């Protein structure tokens, strides 16, 4: 864990989101996919808690060496302030924090499932998986085409990419969970990684649990410190013996959890009834098999 004053290199729009690149060589050197950073807010004494952001990219080589990129949506005071950051501003950053995704040793075919800007860490993960000779497929969903997170980048990284939008303005109409079964079958995915809204994580994790496919999820929960001392960001996790459970901190024991061990019913409440779905379109099969 490093605390540093980091210079803002760039602040760009990325579709509907804000993409911020920071000069943070020490943090970038250590960062792994799934980990996050905490950014301190200004000392104006009206709000004070650090804001957590998952790491979208940590560049160690090339022209962007020593930089970190985060992507976020403006949802409150902290993100509204951060969206106004200018190049050469400096930010108070702590990171990298939390446990990262882990890579399979033997299994090869991976399906990465992302929703909204929550998909951000999956691109970093895809690069690391590819560097380990894994076959990466991706499915990214969003409300509308402007919120589909970096589809071109996804195509560069993954063998196949499927996009879903709830309004049908890009890719398949519907949610990632609507195409999940078809994708698992077509890709023969042996490992699933998911990152996005918690209800999406739940749907993916529960399906993978039923199909006995290992699934890692990166969760989001309200967090005050990010350092393991405030105990606000907990997630109920079932013990290894499948009996007991404990509220586990997503900042230090997470944010990446084994999806089969999260006690979703307790965390997010009783499962909602399945949404009325349109039948999966026929052309889904072609798209999944098409290579970039």
């Amino acid at each position, binding site marked *: 864990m490093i605390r540093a004053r980091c210079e803002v290199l760039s602040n760009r729009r990325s579709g509907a989101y804000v993409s911020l690149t920071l000069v943070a060589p020490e943090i970038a050197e250590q960062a792994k996919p799934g980990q996050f950073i905490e950014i301190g807010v200004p000392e104006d004494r009206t709000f004070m*808690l650090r804001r957590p952001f998952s790491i979208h990219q940590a560049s160690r080589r090339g022209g962007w060496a020593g930089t970190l990129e985060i992507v976020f949506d403006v949802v409150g005071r902290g993100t509204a302030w951060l969206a106004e950051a200018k190049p050469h501003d400096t930010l108070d950053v702590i990171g990298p924090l939390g446990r990262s995704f882990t890579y399979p040793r033997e299994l090869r075919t991976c399906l990465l499932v992302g929703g909204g800007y929550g998909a951000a860490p999956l691109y970093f993960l895809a690069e690391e998986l590819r560097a380990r000779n894994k076959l990466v497929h991706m499915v990214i969903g969003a409300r509308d085409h402007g919120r589909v997170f970096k589809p071109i980048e996804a195509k560069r990284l993954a063998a196949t990419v499927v996009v879903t939008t709830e309004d049908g303005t890009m890719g398949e109409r519907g949610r990632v969970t609507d195409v999940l079964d078809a994708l698992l079958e077509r890709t023969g995915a042996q490992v699933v990684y998911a990152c996005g809204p918690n209800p999406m994580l739940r749907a993916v994790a529960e399906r993978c649990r039923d199909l006995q496919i290992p699934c890692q999820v990166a969760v989001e929960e309200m967090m005050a*410190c990010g350092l393991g*001392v405030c*105990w606000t960001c907990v997630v109920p996790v079932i013990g290894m013996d499948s009996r007991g459970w404990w509220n586990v901190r997503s900042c230090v024991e997470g944010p990446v959890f084994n999806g089969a061990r999260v006690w979703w019913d307790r965390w997010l409440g009783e499962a909602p009834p399945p949404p009325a779905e349109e039948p999966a379109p026929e052309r889904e099969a072609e798209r999944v098999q098409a290579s970039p």
Partner: protein
Amino acid sequence: MTTSNGDSGTSLAVDLNGVAFPTPVLAASGCFGSGREMAAALDVRRIGGIVTKSVTLGPTKGLPTPRMVEVDAGMLNAIGLQNPGVEEFLAKDGPFIASLGVPVILSIAGKSVQEFAQVAIQTRDMPGVVAIEANISCPNVERRNQVFACHPEQAIEVIATMTRLTTLPVFAKLTADVTNIVEIADACVHAGAHGVTLINTLLGMAIDVESFRPRLAAVTGGLSGLAIRPVAIRCVYQVAQALPGVPIIGVGGISTARDAIEFLLAGAWAVQVGTANFANPDATIQIADGIGQFLAARGLSSPADLTGKVERSERVAEPAYRSG
């Protein structure tokens, strides 16, 4: 800057009637763990002291999420005293506390007098622990009648039992959510409390106007942060006026040295920093340094020189609590 300044003769050390700290700035309970996690973020050996997260007899799972919501100039939390219980605490944090070299105050919580007593017994010989803080004021308990610090006779029972069972000095951590905090503080001191810690979070609530739902799963939670400082200052002042000579540790909304000095002037002998640690892990160290500079600039030799030095105009009317 270190904890003392040889040139000017300023020392930050404080002595709370026999309980000594190298600086008057401690980390508050529930905001610093036992220091183990924070050791990755700062040099914990430089802080004045640590009050542990409250320990209960058995493992406590705590409340569902959302457990936290940020509000204007503060935050609400409803953790529900999650902790692994005294046995695992002793096994996991005991060795760390023993080797830390920083004075540690052990915070104990419980649902019953017996639970407080049992934890006090089991933690009797913990190396590194210089005092106990009886958390009889946590607002996030199942029933309001478990907030022992809301009722003088219940507060007396807990404090009297604990002081009988431990040789360590006991500080009673009190809540401002009472009609007359002086009455409660006085009861605790008569029951054997060495001093008082003022104040715990204030019971608060926030509602999401879009969904019409409370923003905390537990509906209500404890308000901390800058917003509560004037209430905490008032409590410290009232108790210091009424109970001179009783060590008071002030806590509530401190994030700068000036905030801490305000507490000292009101009558605190030392202070605790809570929520500010989340934003700035170095807060306790920086606040202590700032107090040192404040003292040196005024030619004062010790934080004790500021304790209770608030000056009152003679024309100010007697506060109502005196006649109550």
